[in-house]
Every structure is written in structure tokens, then in C-alpha cells.
């Protein structure tokens, strides 16, 4: 049970990073973006490509960082992947979503997001193959933290959790201490009022795509670091990330963080009770329960 809880917290941190971007986009642009989880895939594969390039041109960077399987090359690759994914998110908006937004309804946007998800997923499969990839083929043994009850944890998992929490802390400080953060929260709460207070909506939309894409890239790399990289990352994570967003309340960044942990823990705790094949249904059940009991989520507010 304690092992499931620990694993749930680790998975939850990755879901939280993905859900932050999704909740901002869903609230500001008022559409359910089913392609958001594919940004994790773009991030994970971008880092894989950059890692291979660094390994080829600067072999010195292939040294591991402490007890982690992560190398200096991968650490640098992750930073570049953040930029690549953020720009990809912005380009997807410019090329597809903005055009649909200008001409179609919110429903058209949802269907467009399905299309974008399919294109990205299949493009990843075409380029990198349908098999799985790993950042490191070296075996990293889990550390036994407790024998009774048994609790195993990999250094990579601890790193991913600590780094995710640090990123969330930085985001919290930006949102709660800077006027840029206030502006982001203002736009999320009331875009029209934000505009008449001098905030340029188009700049904020651009910022939301960049931040959402960047966080998704980090989540994708952490997912690849603690699991495997495959073109199906988006398919596998879209539902848990949506569940995290809905649990937290659409538009609430803090809600998305909490929602990520709730969904991650619930899905992993369910493994202790249910056969593993039923585990993916847990986010579905969470979404249904939240929509029935508290439709606006934990921190969400009713919208006109």
C-alpha cells in the first residue's frame, strides 16, 4: 500500500505539470484541448533527439549525474526540449487553433484538437517507430527504503518529484509575487476585465501556450525518465491529465497541481485493490464522480 502511495505521488507530480498547461488553455480559450498530452510526447522525443546529438558531438556530457540514470547531456537536452515544445505549442495554435477560433465554434476547436492529437501521435510513430525508447539503457537499481512494508524507490523518481515540486514552487512565486503572475491569473479569471485593465490578451494567450508547452515538455521527459518513451505517451496520459484538470477545477492552476496528485495517487492505490487491467478506468471514475458531485472541481468557479 505504501509503495502504491509513493508511486502515486511520483506519477501525480508528472500529471500536475501536464495539467497546469491544460487548465490554463481550457479556461482562457474555452475549449477542451485533447491534443495537450501530445505535447508531453513532443517534449520526450525532442529530448531524446537532443540527447543523441550531444552524445555524438560532446561525449564528455554522457557522464551520469550522481546516482541518477540522467546524464548531463539529457539535462541540457531537457532545457532545449522545453524551448522546442513551447514553440511547437505556439505554432500549433497559430497554424490551427487560432484559425479555427476565428471562424468556428468551441466545438470545432475540440474536434480540431482530436485531429491535432492524431497527427502528432502518428508523426511520432512514423519518425521514431512504434516501439519504445529509453533515455538510458543502463540498469538503475531501486533503493530499498523499507523492507516491512516494502518500499522501493529509484533515484530518478526522487529527482523527478523534487524537480517537479521545485518548478511548481517557482510557478507559485511568479503567480503570487509578480505583476506578470497577477496578469496571468487575471486573464484566467476574467479576460474582458483584464483587457480593459491594459493587459493584451493575445500576448497572454501566447504566454499560456509557451508556459503550457514548456511544462508539458518537462513532464514528458520525467515520464520518459521513469517509464519508457513511446508515441503512445499522449494517448496514455490524456485521460489522467484531463481528470486532474477537472478535479482541480478548470482555470485553477493550484487546483491542477492538487488534481494531478489526487489522480496519480488514486490510480496507483487502485492497483492494490483492482486487477492492473482496470487501473486505467480510475481516471474515468474520478471524472464522473467530480462531475456529479462538484461539477466545477475543487477550486473552479461557475462561469457564465
Amino acid at each position, binding site marked *: 500500500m505504501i509503495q502504491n502511495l509513493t508511486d502515486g505521488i511520483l506519477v501525480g507530480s508528472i500529471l500536475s505539470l501536464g495539467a497546469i498547461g491544460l487548465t490554463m488553455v481550457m479556461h482562457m480559450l474555452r475549449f477542451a484541448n485533447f491534443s495537450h498530452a501530445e505535447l508531453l510526447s513532443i517534449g520526450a522525443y525532442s529530448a531524446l533527439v537532443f540527447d543523441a546529438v550531444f552524445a555524438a558531438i560532446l561525449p564528455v556530457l554522457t557522464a551520469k549525474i550522481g546516482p541518477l540514470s540522467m546524464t548531463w547531456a539529457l539535462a541540457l537536452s531537457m532545457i532545449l526540449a522545453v524551448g522546442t515544445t513551447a514553440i511547437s505549442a505556439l505554432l500549433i495554435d497559430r497554424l490551427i487553433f487560432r484559425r479555427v477560433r476565428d471562424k468556428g465554434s468551441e466545438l470545432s476547436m475540440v474536434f480540431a484538437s482530436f485531429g491535432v492529437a492524431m497527427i502528432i501521435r502518428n508523426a511520432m510513430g512514423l519518425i521514431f517507430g512504434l516501439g519504445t525508447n529509453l533515455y538510458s539503457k543502463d540498469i538503475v537499481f531501486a533503493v530499498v527504503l523499507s523492507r516491512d512494508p516494502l518500499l522501493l524507490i529509484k533515484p530518478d523518481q526522487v529527482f523527478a518529484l523534487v524537480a517537479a515540486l521545485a518548478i511548481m514552487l517557482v510557478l507559485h512565486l511568479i503567480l503570487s509575487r509578480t*505583476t506578470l503572475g*497577477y*496578469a496571468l*491569473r*487575471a486573464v484566467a*479569471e*476574467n479576460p*474582458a*476585465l*483584464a*483587457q*480593459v*485593465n*491594459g*493587459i*493584451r*490578451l493575445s500576448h497572454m494567450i501566447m504566454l499560456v501556450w509557451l508556459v503550457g508547452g514548456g511544462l508539458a515538455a518537462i513532464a514528458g521527459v520525467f515520464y520518459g525518465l521513469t517509464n519508457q518513451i513511446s508515441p503512445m505517451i499522449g494517448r496514455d496520459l490524456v485521460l489522467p491529465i484531463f481528470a486532474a484538470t477537472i478535479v482541480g477545477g478548470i482555470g485553477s492552476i493550484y487546483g491542477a497541481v492538487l488534481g494531478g496528485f489526487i489522480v496519480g495517487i488514486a490510480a496507483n492505490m487502485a492497483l492494490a485493490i483492482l486487477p492492473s487491467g482496470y487501473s486505467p478506468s480510475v481516471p474515468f471514475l474520478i471524472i464522473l464522480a467530480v462531475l456529479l458531485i462538484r461539477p466545477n472541481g475543487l477550486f473552479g468557479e461557475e462561469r457564465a
Partner: protein
Amino acid sequence: MVDAALKVEGVTAGYVPDLPILKEVTLTAQRGQVTVIIGPNGAGKSTLIKAIAGLVSLSAGRIIHEGADISGIRPDQLAGHGVSYVPQMDNIFRTLTIRQNLDLALRSAGAEAASRLDELYARFPPLAEKRNEKAGALSGGQRQFLAVAMALASKPSLILMDEPSAGLSPKAAQEVLECARGLAEQGVTILLVEQNVNQALRLSDYCFILAEGCNQVEGPAADLMNDPVVGEIYLGAKRVKSA
């Protein structure tokens, strides 16, 4: 001597193309005066304010503020033209603290931000006392004062107010309208839409009456308040008599 700070010239506007709500509306607001727009529900009063604020696009006409054509400007450019807009409802950011709301409004004040914040706190002491509380926890009247304080942050020469007394107690409504009057006496031009006709006319200098998106009657507020024909047709005769 007073002169026009704002001229609305033959404005036609609406939310849907080819379905105008405002039809060739013309209006002038004199500098340092309170000008009120009244009329029955659906007259287009709020649409007119929103059109001036750039939130509703114009299909004809133009809007001149202090000699500059501000027709069709983006809402985020309002402050740069010396115009502030206080929406009717949801006019503060409820999830931000009072201080954060004001900091946001003071974003472009640069080095003057700290002194302007002190000025706003001095003008609205209850906001200073509750500066670290969430704005959503404020009473209706205090929310309106916060909205006005945010509007004042950019030192505007014109403030557009959409039904500032809506949903307030009579006492709070009176305080908000008196605040608007006080700002006008300090040289700020106020253009407000009001449903609270008697109170608005008492505190205003000039009044425009709209109906079905068109200009109907205009004149000094005191004259309109005592005009029995206008009172019966547009303002409700009983309310005028009781004033």
C-alpha cells in the same frame, strides 16, 4: 468654462454584423462634468459604453476623446488614451487580493506606482485596511470602490462607468455616485450609465436618454428631472414626482 472631452458622432454598433443595437447615436461629455445615459432596458446604454471602451466594434461613426480619434481601439489601449472603464458586474479580480488588483492596474505607472498606490489608499481607506484580503471577500460597495480605484490608477481624464450602483444598497449606491461626483469636481470627466434614475439625475450635470438604440432626449439633468413629459415617457412619472 467647460468644453467637450468626449464626442460620440453617429455611432452605429452591435454584437452581430447587420444587427445594430446602436443606431447613429451622438453624444458629448463635457470636461469635468458628470454625464449620465439613461433609458429603458434594452435601449443600448451599456452597449454604447462598451463601444466607447472598444469592447463592441463600430460599423459607422467615430469616437473622439480629447481631439484624438479612439474609434475601434483595442480595450487594452484605453488607459494609454486617458480613458478608464468600470464594467457593471465582475469589475474586480476576485481571486486576487486588493493589493494585487491595484498593482495590476498600476502596471504601467513605472516609478510612480508606489506613490499612486499610497494616493489610492488615502482616497479609499477601507481598501488600505483590507489590502491583503481577497477582493472577492469585499462587500458590494467596497468592490465598486476598488473598481473605481483601479480605474483611477492610470490617472485617466475620462472614466466610463456602467451602472455603478447596480446591486448595491441605497446607501452604498449613494456613496458610489457621490464618489463619481467628487471625481468630476477634481476635473475628471465621468460618463455613466444608470438605472437608478433619480439619484443619477441629482448628481449629474447633463443627461442623454436613449431608447431602442437611438438618441431621444438630452439636456441638463436638472431640467430633465423637472420635465413632466420626459418624466412620464422615459423616467416613470411617479419616480419624478417623488424626487
